[in-house]
């Protein structure tokens, strides 16, 4: 009988913080830089207490200069450091998009393999907190369009805790998107949780009737929907993509081979999106496995509104997932 893994109750916020702490302790080249990460304790309180522990050199408050400090992160990575750059939200990251795309993602190829950029950029993403149209979008799918960078989307506590270290070992830029609704998520996590792989998707719930492909906060909507559907005799297999670039095609294609139905749930907008990309890949590689056309539930194509009922209406919801699955499976 193997020993029971000791568990602790923790939050997503604490898991990210412990990941940063561990990286800072293990590698003195690692430092955290961003707006309000130090004296304020982090916009989402992720880095609270780290300034006291590591000092202002390594928990480095920056001015509101997204392009400047993301570019400085790229330079510091070129100079032998292992920076973790925190951008407050994905909407603000657009101010640094030039540095991310034109520098971080291109330097290795443009220099003929001479200069790699071992940089990690973390940022909050997603809606659900009534933050309206300039703080609540899900643009990770855009970033996943760019060759030369990795895009990660930790949904679980273990991934929040474990992806950062692995990302820091990567010689190339890695962007980690943390959905802002997850920071307060509480649950059990193994006390010895450590680095996890950042290459593969995971089956979070096995099932035989339909494959739900999702990531980040939408994972929990899919799992909730799957529970309800199970009571009705529909078993949904739920896949957490984890890495949005590169995509682990094999995991979801294997699932589709079994279930012959697939619904993609993506908090990003629908047009020209990550869900469109996955759908296209399924058409290319598994068209004849399907008993029903690929379907997608995405955010409504509107700037995310403030009012609670309107924001809810704009986002993928458990009820919509349940209704869509019922229709697909019963008519498929």
């Amino acid at each position, binding site marked *: 009988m193997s020993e029971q893994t000791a568990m602790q109750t923790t939050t997503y916020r604490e898991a990210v913080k412990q990941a940063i702490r561990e990286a800072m302790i293990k590698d003195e080249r690692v430092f955290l830089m961003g707006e309000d990460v130090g004296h304020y304790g982090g916009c989402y309180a992720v880095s609270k207490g780290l300034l006291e522990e590591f000092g202002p050199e390594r928990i480095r408050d920056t001015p509101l200069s997204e*392009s*400047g400090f993301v570019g*400085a992160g790229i*330079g510091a*990575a070129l*100079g032998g450091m292992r920076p973790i750059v925190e951008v407050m939200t994905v909407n603000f990251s657009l101010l640094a998009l*030039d540095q991310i795309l034109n520098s971080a993602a291109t330097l290795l190829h*443009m220099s003929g393999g*001479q200069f790699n950029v071992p940089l990690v950029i973390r940022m909050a993403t997603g809606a659900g907190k009534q933050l309206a149209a300039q703080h609540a979008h899900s643009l990770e799918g855009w970033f996943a369009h760019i060759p030369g960078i990795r895009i990660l989307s930790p949904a679980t506590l273990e991934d929040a805790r474990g992806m950062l270290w692995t990302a820091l070992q*990567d010689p190339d830029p890695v962007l980690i998107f943390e959905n802002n609704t997850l920071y307060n998520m509480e649950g059990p996590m193994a006390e010895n949780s450590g680095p996890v792989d950042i290459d593969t998707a995971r089956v979070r719930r096995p099932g035989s009737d339909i494959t739900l492909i999702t990531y980040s906060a939408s994972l929990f909507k899919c799992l909730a929907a799957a529970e309800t559907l199970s009571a009705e005799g529909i078993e949904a297999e739920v896949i957490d993509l984890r890495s949005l670039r590169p995509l682990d095609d094999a995991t979801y294609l294997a699932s589709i081979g079994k279930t012959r139905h697939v619904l993609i749930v993506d908090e990003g907008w629908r047009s020209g999106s990550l869900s469109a990309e996955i759908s296209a890949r399924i058409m290319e590689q598994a068209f004849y496995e399907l008993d029903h056309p690929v379907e997608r539930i995405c955010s409504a194509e509107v700037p995310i509104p403030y009012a609670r009922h309107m924001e809810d209406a704009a986002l993928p919801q458990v009820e919509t997932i349940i209704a869509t699955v019922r229709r697909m499976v019963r008519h498929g």
Partner: protein
Amino acid sequence: MLKPIEKDNAIRQLRQMLLIRRFEEKSAELYSATKIRGFLHLYNGEEAVAVGVMATLTPEDAVVATYREHGQALARGMNAGKIMAEMYGKQEGCCRGRGGSMHLFDVATRFYGGNAIVGGGIPLAVGLALADKMQGRNRVTCCFFGDGAVAEGDFHEALNLAGLWRLPVLFLCENNLYAMGTALCYTQAASDIAAKGANYGITAAFVDGMDVLAVEAAARTAVDHIRQGNGPYLLECRTYRFRPHSMFDTELYRTKEEVDRWKQRDPIELLAASLCEAHLFDEQERAVLEQDVAREIEEAVAFAENGTWEPVEELTRFVSSARRAA
């Protein structure tokens, strides 16, 4: 009167400026012959800036350059053949033909590009300097940019960061009076570039960018200031580009008379004349120097001509690193 050691230095500067001038002339010729394609931005007229500044840097220092960087690369000591081969698109080029004229990189001389997003390299330079400071290395990062970049947010964000964190960066502005084809007076509310350093607590100066020895002296003051731990420095070099912005520029925005007036202050001829005046240099030595430079250019072109094309199978190589660190 120059001392002998200064004479050697001046002759070295003259040779480097000549190398750049002849390299650029050859590049223009090869562009017309369609050996070189894409955008080509030549450095004619601005040679004194790169040559004067590079003389003050050590091999451990870093350089971040612009898209008009052949001169910066040559003055930094990059091999002319590898630069020419890069512009030919050959795999023997410094970036295997991936970058071309605007994106020269060289790990050996710590030459970090070749950046064609105006101002885009300035935050990178700040980061390189931050890495040096955090790792306790006494190195300087020299960041070249033009007067056009001064209008970019990255310039102001980066100067603020470097001033705030007292980083060892030499911000080196090559002010050639035109942001592509628009004069400074049409783009800057306050056109004194050096004066902008004060806003960020950064010591700044300007210098005649057509006088290589003056540039060297000013850059040495700046680099000494930085090495002594006094934080960043902004040096504006007032210079002029003799040729059009790129190969597609009809130069509607400036007069021939203006260009001719600046050519009277050709940095190469200015230095040669002052050396001749001091009887330290003569026409015969000039001829020897020219021959020597011509041979180096010839070798560079031959190297590029003899280069090979990277197999297309390697198209996606270096999008990501081949392996992760252990």
